[in-house]
């Protein structure tokens, strides 16, 4: 700071003169800038404070209080809610399921999105249809998607059972079975999101210089080699952007669970946010729901921190 100031004073030819008592006093014009800036920001700042920052803080505070019931107000209970949460097997189910759900959905979605983008970006016949086919699930509401897939999975006369029936496979209750229910939801999530993430890869591919491909072709590199050594690394910033969004989605979007399984059978499709919804709005145990929300907020905060500290530093290509 002082270096910068010294230089500027030198340029003005006033370096020898002693500084006035308060060198940083803002001029009226600068004050106007400060005030205008804040006035412009104010409407959005108020809305954000009321509907994002306040609820986030209130969630943490409420997790240390009991749920108010009728005339009985909330009382401070310390870590009781957290104790109850740790002892709650459904919470652990929800957390485990959510992690499995994320670990299965995200890599598959990203791999498919990348493959789709490479295909659609090439000179393949009918790529307009392909782009349409891949992207269309994105504009459908998850609730509509879930209703369509619900029929596919329905035992006996659903499409999947009918198709398998042709090969003599017996009817199967896909969504009612503890071993297959979560996988069914994972398939739906992949179908819905892959085309959405394809778009970002497509954008990145279109910004790549065609000279790279020409040079690789001259050198006799195979397409797979080119993808592995050139395209894939160049897509890295996009992959990270997609990755962050995919992680958030895997904790944020539970509409299909409401339609298809409601957390069952035997809690095998219970995800964290769905459990929060059940506890908060079915059992009306708001304090416990707040405690569960704290876990979700911590997970998202870790993600934000990870992005900030780790990724921003390592990924700079352009």
């Amino acid at each position, binding site marked *: 700071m002082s270096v910068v100031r010294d230089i500027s004073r030198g340029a003005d030819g006033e370096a020898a003169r002693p500084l006035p008592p308060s060198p940083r006093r803002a001029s009226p014009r*600068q004050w106007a800038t*400060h005030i*205008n*800036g*804040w006035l*412009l*920001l104010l*409407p*959005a*700042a108020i*809305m954000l404070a009321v*509907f*994002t920052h306040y*609820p986030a803080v209130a*969630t943490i505070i*409420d997790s240390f209080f009991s749920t108010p019931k009728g005339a009985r107000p909330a009382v401070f209970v310390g870590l009781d809610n957290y104790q109850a949460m740790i002892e709650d097997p459904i919470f652990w189910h929800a957390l485990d399921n959510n992690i499995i759900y994320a670990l299965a959905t995200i890599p598959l979605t990203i791999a498919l999105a990348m493959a789709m983008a490479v*295909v659609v970006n090439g*000179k*393949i016949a*009918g790529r307009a249809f*392909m782009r349409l086919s*891949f*992207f*269309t*699930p*994105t*504009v*459908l*509401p*998850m*609730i*509509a998607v879930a*209703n*369509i897939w619900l*029929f*596919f999975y329905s035992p006996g006369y659903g499409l999947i059972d009918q198709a398998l029936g042709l090969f003599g496979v017996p009817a199967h209750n896909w969504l009612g079975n503890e071993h297959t229910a979560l996988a069914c939801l994972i398939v739906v999530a992949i*179908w819905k999101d892959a085309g959405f993430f394809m*778009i*970002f890869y*497509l*954008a990145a*591919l279109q910004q790549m210089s065609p000279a790279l491909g020409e040079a690789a072709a001259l050198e006799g*590199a*195979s*397409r797979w080699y080119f993808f592995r050594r050139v395209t894939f690394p160049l897509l890295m910033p996009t992959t990270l*952007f997609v990755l962050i969004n995919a992680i958030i989605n895997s904790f*944020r979007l539970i*509409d299909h669970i*409401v*339609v298809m399984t409601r957390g069952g059978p035997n809690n095998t499709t219970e995800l964290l946010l769905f459990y*929060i*919804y059940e506890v*908060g709005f079915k059992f009306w145990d*708001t304090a416990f729901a707040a405690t569960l929300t704290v876990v*979700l*907020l911590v997970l*998202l*905060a870790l*993600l*934000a921190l990870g992005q900030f500290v780790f990724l921003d530093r390592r990924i700079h290509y352009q």
Partner: protein
Amino acid sequence: MTPLYQTGRVSAALETTAAWCLAVLWILPLAYALWASIHPSAYSAHFVLDAPLTTENFVKAWNAAPFSRYFLNTFLLVTMILAAQLVLCTLAAYAFARFEFYGRELAFILVLLQLMIMPDVLIVENYRTMTALGIVDTIPAIGLPYMASAFGIFLLRQTFKTVPRELDEAARVEGASPLQVLLKVYVPLAKPVYIAYGLVSVSYHWNNFLWPLIVTNSVNTRPLTVGLQIFASSDQGIDWSVITAATLMTSAPLLIAFLLFQRQFVQSFMRAGIR
């Protein structure tokens, strides 16, 4: 771009086939929904070319639930949210892009926080706030948490920063106030970004479900997604044809808009994603 790679004909053909299979597989669920909705329910899982066509499923669905009201609610909702977002985000983005004010860096970080901690996960406390405000079961209550959008502020700030300062200063020399500069210089130059953001916002809120489900409980406020869910989960005798008809009907405006303006949609989602 794909130039002359060392690819054999066989592997090229294999690749094309695989890509085609994937594309067909991907469109299949939607194609099926369309099939079921325009044929009598006896044909919903029975695929023959001479199956009779019908619009009966749509008529039944339309009459079985107050869908016209749901359409109106959703329309009001997305319009209200988008209008508020455009105003709030434009003003805030302008402040971040072109004003030096105390606490700007901190304020910007606090705004960006919403990219991670979205209103979708703060349902418990936001419901409490709506109760305190006495507006549970109103359309504004569905929209309020989304109106100051960190995403919108960020996107517009990046755009405003690319506007040459000379344009800004020229307008000011002519005596334009900061708001006039915003409206005459910045907003017109950011038009493509506004279109992109508008499309993303409308499709997000048209499709949003969990928060509207929580905060509404009457026909006069429910958006389409919630209405569809109530319709599909009530006892309709599990007539899949009618349910898929209702499903397609609720998605139709977006779907048709997408098919007509495919390029715009895809480019908008691209633009919104490039940060």
